[in-house]
C-alpha cells in the first residue's frame, strides 16, 4: 500500500532539510491530492522520491503546465466591532487578491512497486515571460520533451534543462499560446520583410510631381 500524501510529506521533510511542502487538496471524486514543493529544494526532493526504496517513483508519466490568472477570493471573516458602545461580533466579507502564477505538474508512478500517482507541483513567482523553475529532466528523462513543450506554450524557463527550445511552435514565434490571456495575431503570415519599405518607396515614386506637369505636351522641334 502506498503512503498517503501526509506521510510522504513528513518523510520528505525529514530527508531533505529545509524543504517546504504544502498539500494541495483535491475535492473531486478522483481524490488525487498533490504536493506543492518549493523551488529551491525541488531537485533534491525529486531525487529523494525517485531513489527512496519504499517509494521508487522511477516513472514520471505526465508533465504539464498551468496558468492561473490573478484572482480575488472573497472570505467571510468574523470581526469584532463596537456598535453603540457595545462590542459585538459581526460577519464581514473580505476580499483577498491572489496574484497569478504559472504552475508545472508532474505525475509520478513507480514501475518497480506498481503504485502511483504521486503528484508534485511547482509554482513560479509571477506570470512574467520566462518565469524560472528548476528543471527535473536530470532526474527523469521523460520530462525532456514535455518541459520543452511547457516552455513553448506557457513560457516557463526550466533552469538546468539540457536543450530548452521551442518544440511545437516555430523558433521565431513570440508569445505563449496556452496562456489564458493569449490573443492570437491578426495575421499569422506576417513577417518583417523589406516589403513595407518597398511599398513606401513606391508610394513616393507615384506621388504627383508638379514640376513635370504638362511634360507630355512638349514635342520635338519640327
Amino acid at each position, binding site marked *: 500500500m502506498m503512503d498517503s500524501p501526509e506521510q510522504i510529506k513528513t518523510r520528505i521533510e525529514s530527508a531533505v532539510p529545509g524543504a517546504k511542502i504544502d498539500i494541495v487538496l*483535491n*475535492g*473531486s*471524486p*478522483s481524490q*488525487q491530492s498533490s504536493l506543492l514543493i518549493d523551488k529551491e529544494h525541488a531537485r533534491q526532493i525529486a531525487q529523494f522520491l525517485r531513489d527512496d526504496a519504499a517509494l521508487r517513483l*522511477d*516513472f*514520471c*508519466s*505526465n508533465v*504539464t503546465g*498551468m496558468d492561473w490568472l490573478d484572482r480575488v477570493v472573497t472570505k467571510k471573516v468574523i470581526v469584532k466591532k463596537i456598535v453603540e458602545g457595545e462590542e459585538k461580533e459581526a460577519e464581514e466579507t473580505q476580499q483577498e487578491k491572489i496574484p497569478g502564477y504559472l504552475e508545472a*505538474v508532474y*505525475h509520478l508512478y513507480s*514501475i518497480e512497486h*506498481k503504485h502511483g*500517482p504521486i*503528484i508534485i507541483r511547482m509554482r513560479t513567482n509571477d506570470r512574467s515571460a520566462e518565469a524560472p523553475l528548476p528543471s527535473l529532466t536530470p532526474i*527523469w*528523462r*521523460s*520530462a*525532456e*520533451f*514535455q518541459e520543452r513543450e511547457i516552455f513553448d*506554450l506557457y513560457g516557463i524557463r526550466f533552469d538546468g534543462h539540457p536543450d530548452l527550445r521551442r*518544440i*511545437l*511552435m*516555430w523558433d521565431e514565434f513570440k508569445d505563449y*499560446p*496556452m496562456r489564458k490571456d493569449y490573443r492570437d495575431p491578426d495575421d499569422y503570415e506576417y513577417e518583417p520583410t523589406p516589403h513595407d519599405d518597398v511599398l513606401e518607396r513606391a508610394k513616393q515614386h507615384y506621388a504627383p510631381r508638379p514640376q513635370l506637369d504638362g511634360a507630355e505636351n512638349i514635342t520635338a522641334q519640327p
Partner: protein
Amino acid sequence: MTTTIQTLEPAERPLQIMSSRLEGELLEVSMGPQHPSTHGVFRMNVALDGEIVRKLKPVFGYLHRNHEKIGENMSYLGSMPYTDRLDYFCSMTNNWAYALSVEKLAGIEVPERAEYLRIILAELTRLQNHASLLGFLLSDMGAWGTPLMYAFREREKILDLFESLSGSRMMCDYMRFGGCRVDASADWLAGAKKIVDAFPKFLDEFEKLIVENEILIARTQEVGKLSADLAISAGITGPMLRACGVNYDIRKVDGYGFYPRFKFRIPLGEHGDTYDRLMMRALEMRESIGILKQAFEQIPEGPIMNPKVKIRGFRPPVGEAYGRIEAPKGELGFYLISDGSPNPYRYRVRPPSFINLTILEDLCLGHTVADVMVILGSVDIVMGEVDR
C-alpha cells in the same frame, strides 16, 4: 582562319579524388517532413559521418493546432469527437481514455455491458493498429506494398465493424462518460466474433512472413537497442517498454474497466531491439484475441448508459483528475482540471508517441540512415498525436 582547340590528354587532366568518407566533416541532412517513411509530416535533422548517424534532432509541430487550447474552449462533451483526431488509428481507445478521466473527475459509474463493449472495441483497435504497424514497418524495409495490403485487408474488416456500430470507420466518437453511445446488436457481436475467430489464421500467415525472414532479421536484430533503465527513465510506455523486458501494462497495474476479470498474459521482450519491438506487437495481438473471445462469452445484457449522467450541460465538481489507459501505442492519459464551469479549465493529453520519441536520438546513434527509418517505424508514431 582556323582556330585550334587545345584539349588536354586524359593523362594530363587533374584527377578528382572522390573519397568515400567525409574526413572530419559531418554532413547535415534534413530528413522529412515530406518523406514516405516518416509516417506523416515529421522531420529529423541528422548529422551524418558517411552513412553513420552521429546526431539526430527530431523536429515536429507541422500538424500542431493546439488541441489542448481548443479543448479548454469546448464543453466536456464537445471534446469527445475531437479526441478521435489525436491518434486517428485508434479513436476508440482515445475516447475511452478521455471518458475514463471525466468519469474519475465526476465519480461516474459505468454499466456492465458498456464496460464489456469498451473492452471489445479497445482490443479490436489494438488488433488493427498492430497489424497495420507491422505492415508499415515491412513497407519501410523495402517489402513494398504486399505485406501492408495483407495487414490492411484485416484492418478493413475491423473498420467495417466500427462503421456499422458507430457510423464512422476511423472517427468513431463512440464512448460517452457513463457508457457508450449506441448498443451493439446480437448480429454485430456475432459478426465481430466471426472476424476475431478468423484472425489467428491471418496471424499465422503474417508471422511466417516476419519471424524467420532472413532479411528482416538482418535489418532488425541488434538495431536500435534500448536498455530497460533508459526506457523507464525516459517514460517509454507500451510495447516499446515491454520489449526491454519491463513488465508494466496498465491493464494489469491499474486494472481499469473490467480487465481484472480477464485472463491474459503480458508478452515481454529480452533485448529491447527493433526485432523485439516488432514481435511484441505480434504477440500482443494473440493475447488480444484471447481477451476478445472471453468478452464475447461473458458480455451480459443490460443498459449501456448510466441514466444518472447528464452529458449535455455537464458540470463536474471542482477538482482535477488524471486518468490513463493502455492504448496500443502506450500510456494515453488525460489530465483534466474543473473549475465547476461547463468547460474544463485545463485539458491535457499525455500522448504516448510524443514521449516515446524522446529517446529516438539514443536509439539511432551509430546506425546507418536506412536503420533510422526502421527504428522510427518501430516506435510507432502518429503525427496527429505527436503534434496535437
